């Protein structure tokens, strides 16, 4: 472990990210709400913090290795969340916000979870609201991916970082140079965001809301500038646009890249993961639709279709926008939706969860076992996109799943020992680990009422989900620290 390199890199990244405190200052000048001082102070403190970490080791030119990369990524998420709390703590517009609450909010933003401890959002200054949306947008594509795209000086070390942060079962590159891949990803990301914002604006949102919501939609985050989330607008066209962009953001971005390069949509249809993703969404929506109709929750069938579709896409992609209080829906629907969020979005997207491709691989492995049980001498292979997977890949998927399950159980039990009831604890764990956002029971709308210790556990749970378990758990293994 080379702590000097770790400190230097984190300091460097932090200095760059301190710049993200500047847009809220501009927003504050536009709306003149006198909130700029908290952002100016945050900016200066973050810059100084980064400088202090970077300065002592600035001349060190060592390459970092796998373990340094892992440590940097995890530490940087933590450090950035820590400095991200500053505006929340400095502003006077938010009452009784504890440090743990602010950290929860900051982490929830960056990990694109979308759970909030704040209430009465509509009364908060615009700059604070904008800042929350921006946190989600920065976290959506991954803060390291952003860093790699804009910072060529990370060099080869950038690769170790990228691998430690990026998700997926294969590390296929879109371009030979990592930096170009990162730039391509951000280009797609920015374009989707811009289109989404235009769509929202044309559907009647104010410019502020349109930009703010486009940030949290394409990042699959779920923060809103209103307490009522998307439901506040009560507009069909806004919901359709939200659904469309949540769906797009939940697809592997390398598919978008290929589609754009070839000017063709064929590659989507050839991809097993995409097809499964679409299929899961359709099946879930139908199930929700049927149960809502049976229970006659809404008067008209068009209302039923609208809400079941929106809530399905919002929860299944792990966005967490709410158009209707789905936690109050009858029968098993709320729990069912939370279960679907475990599947989550595709790898290489901005969404959370276990990821569709892993579920698909495990499903096909199950099918293989059944086939082999019926025909013991049959040679069956587990295939993905017409190529069979190596045992190594399958084992890594199963290993990931087991770690995910173990982490889930541990966090769930911790919450219950802290004193949450079963429904709240279960849904809070799922909502944070899958980077979903809203839960059920006590945490259906707001996490503010939870105890500080519960907030810390949940903040940790969000990071586990965002960095896909392995990176974090590795830090707790003694082999990681042994030289």
């Amino acid at each position, binding site marked *: 472990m080379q702590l000097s390199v770790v400190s230097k890199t984190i300091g460097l990244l932090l200095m760059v990210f301190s710049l993200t405190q500047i847009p809220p200052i501009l927003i504050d000048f536009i709306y003149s709400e006198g909130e700029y001082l908290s952002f100016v102070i945050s900016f200066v403190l973050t810059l100084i913090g980064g400088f202090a970490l970077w300065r002592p080791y600035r001349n060190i030119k060592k390459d970092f290795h*796998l373990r340094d990369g892992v440590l940097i990524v995890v530490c940087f998420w933590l450090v950035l969340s820590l400095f991200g709390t500053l505006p929340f703590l400095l502003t006077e517009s938010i009452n009784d916000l504890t440090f743990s609450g602010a950290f929860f909010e900051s982490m929830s933003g960056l990990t694109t979870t979308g759970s909030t401890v704040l209430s009465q959002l509509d009364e908060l200054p615009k700059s604070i609201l904008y800042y929350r949306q921006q946190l989600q947008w920065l976290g959506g594509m991954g803060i390291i991916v952003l860093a790699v795209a804009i910072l060529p000086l990370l060099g*080869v070390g950038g*690769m170790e970082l990228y691998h430690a942060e990026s998700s997926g079962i294969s590390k296929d*590159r879109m*371009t*030979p*140079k*990592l*930096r170009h891949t990162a730039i391509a990803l951000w280009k797609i990301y920015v374009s989707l965001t811009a289109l989404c914002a235009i769509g929202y604006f044309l559907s009647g949102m104010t410019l502020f809301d349109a930009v703010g919501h486009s940030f949290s939609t394409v990042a699959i985050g779920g923060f809103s500038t209103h307490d009522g989330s998307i439901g506040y607008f009560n507009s069909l066209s806004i919901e359709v646009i939200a659904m469309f962009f949540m769906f797009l953001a939940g697809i592997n971005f390398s598919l978008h890249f290929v589609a754009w390069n070839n000017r063709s949509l064929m590659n989507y249809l050839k991809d097993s993961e995409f097809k499964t993703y679409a299929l899961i969404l359709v099946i879930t929506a139908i199930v929700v639709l049927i149960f809502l109709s049976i229970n006659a929750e809404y008067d008209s069938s068009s209302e039923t279709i609208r809400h079941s579709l929106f809530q399905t896409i919002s929860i299944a992609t792990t966005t967490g926008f709410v158009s209707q209080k789905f936690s109050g829906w009858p029968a098993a629907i709320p729990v069912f939706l939370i279960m679907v969020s475990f599947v989550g979005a595709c790898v290489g997207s901005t969404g959370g969860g276990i990821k569709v491709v892993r579920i698909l691989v495990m499903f096909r492995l199950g099918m293989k076992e059944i086939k082999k049980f019926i025909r013991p001498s049959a040679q069956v292979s587990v295939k993905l996109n017409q190529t069979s997977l190596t045992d190594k890949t399958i084992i890594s998927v199963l290993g990931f799943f087991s770690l995910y399950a173990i982490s889930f159980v541990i966090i769930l039990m911790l919450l219950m020992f802290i004193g949450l009831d079963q429904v709240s604890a279960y849904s809070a764990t799922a909502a944070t680990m899958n980077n979903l956002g809203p839960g059920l029971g006590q945490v259906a709308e707001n996490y503010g009422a939870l105890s500080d210790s519960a907030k810390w556990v949940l903040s940790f749970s969000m990071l586990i989900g965002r960095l896909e378990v392995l990176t974090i758990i590795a830090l707790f293994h003694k082999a990681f620290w042994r030289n």
Partner: protein
Amino acid sequence: MKILILGAGQVGSTLAKYLCLDDDNDITIVDQVEDKLTPLQRHLDIKTVVGYGAYPSVLEKAGIKTMDMVIAVMGSDERNMVACRMAHTLYHVDKKIARIRTTEYLLRPEIFTNEALPIDFLITPEILITDYIKGLVEEPGASQVFDFENGLVQLVETRAYIGTPIVNRPVKELHEHIPDVKMRIVSLYRNDRAILANSDTVVREGDHVYFLAKKDHISRVLKEFRRVENTYQKIFIAGGGNIGLNVAKLLEDTHNIRIIELDVDRAIALAEELNHTLVLQGNASDEDLLLEEGIENTDLFLALTDSDEVNVIVSILAKRLGAHKTIALVKRDVYASLAEQSDDVDIIVSPDQITVDGILSHIRKGDTMKVHSLQHGEAEAIEVVVHGDKNTSKVVGSMIKDLPLPEGVVVGAIVRDNELLMGSKKLVIEQGDHVLMMLTDVGKIHQVEALFSENE
């Protein structure tokens, strides 16, 4: 440049590593075996694709349509040929480089045309290795020898040994020792790191020194760095494979050569092919045989069999039995570094390194006349022709000391009208000069190229 490398063996992966040093290169590498690609993907900023390198579908997946160059270094010659054909016919790739090992194919150069086998540059390790060994034999005391201007000037790497006139003395005294010899030290490596050498730099024992001099003067300069080494007369070659045979053929008229081959049929074939060489059938590790043939009077022992282990072991044996100097052919890096630490093996010749250097030198050749890749691809010796006049060129008319050269770039010499001029500070560059430079950091090459390019 966008470069596609087919085959991630020793040569392919080493090439990828060196080409990566230049930030302008986008590298993609293809191999059938995923395990060979995983470590590359981990350590290098390149794209890897699993698949059979001659299949169009795999080539397309690797993005061949946008490639500027394809380098086929897969295990089989035929596969490399087909891959180049594919790249040419289906995807119109501009430059195709292939490794061809089999001599049979090389005997008919007319097949390597755009109509038949479109390969722009053939790399043949055996020929390169043979030339390399020939260079070493002709310059006793040198670890590496590179030609410029068809051999008028040579760049030589040597090691400074204790007890010689130059060790622990500043470089400028070298010129006082041999005032009539034109030579210039262009680079000094201490503990594998380049140090800036000027006339006051003190040479230490074990330093690796690169110097430029006229070919006829090389041996005189070398004497300053090493104990006197007479020209090699009696040479022993272990292993009568293609390399052994070719080396023997090149040297048998001027040297006294014995060659040991284990295989009876091969030994007979060697005897038929060679005229003045004594061919011995037997085991190179047979102590009695070596002693009987006078190993203790041997000037140079060359271990050139197919097996790394045998080459290292017989070199050690020969040295212990009294051979003055040993050179071993070693493919694997692990053995090479082990053998380098042993005093019994004097020089390691690595076929893969030579192949890689050959390809790199070719790729790097643009307006530069000649490129030699040194220090495992980190450094380069280049020869550039100065075009243009005072108005169009940034270098014509300026003195060497005034050139805005990046750090780590040294002008070693200038060849003007076939005359060698050493790169002293006050020498003024003229149109048509051939400038020989040493770059300790390959990354600076673009700056150097820009400096010497002619403004239209």
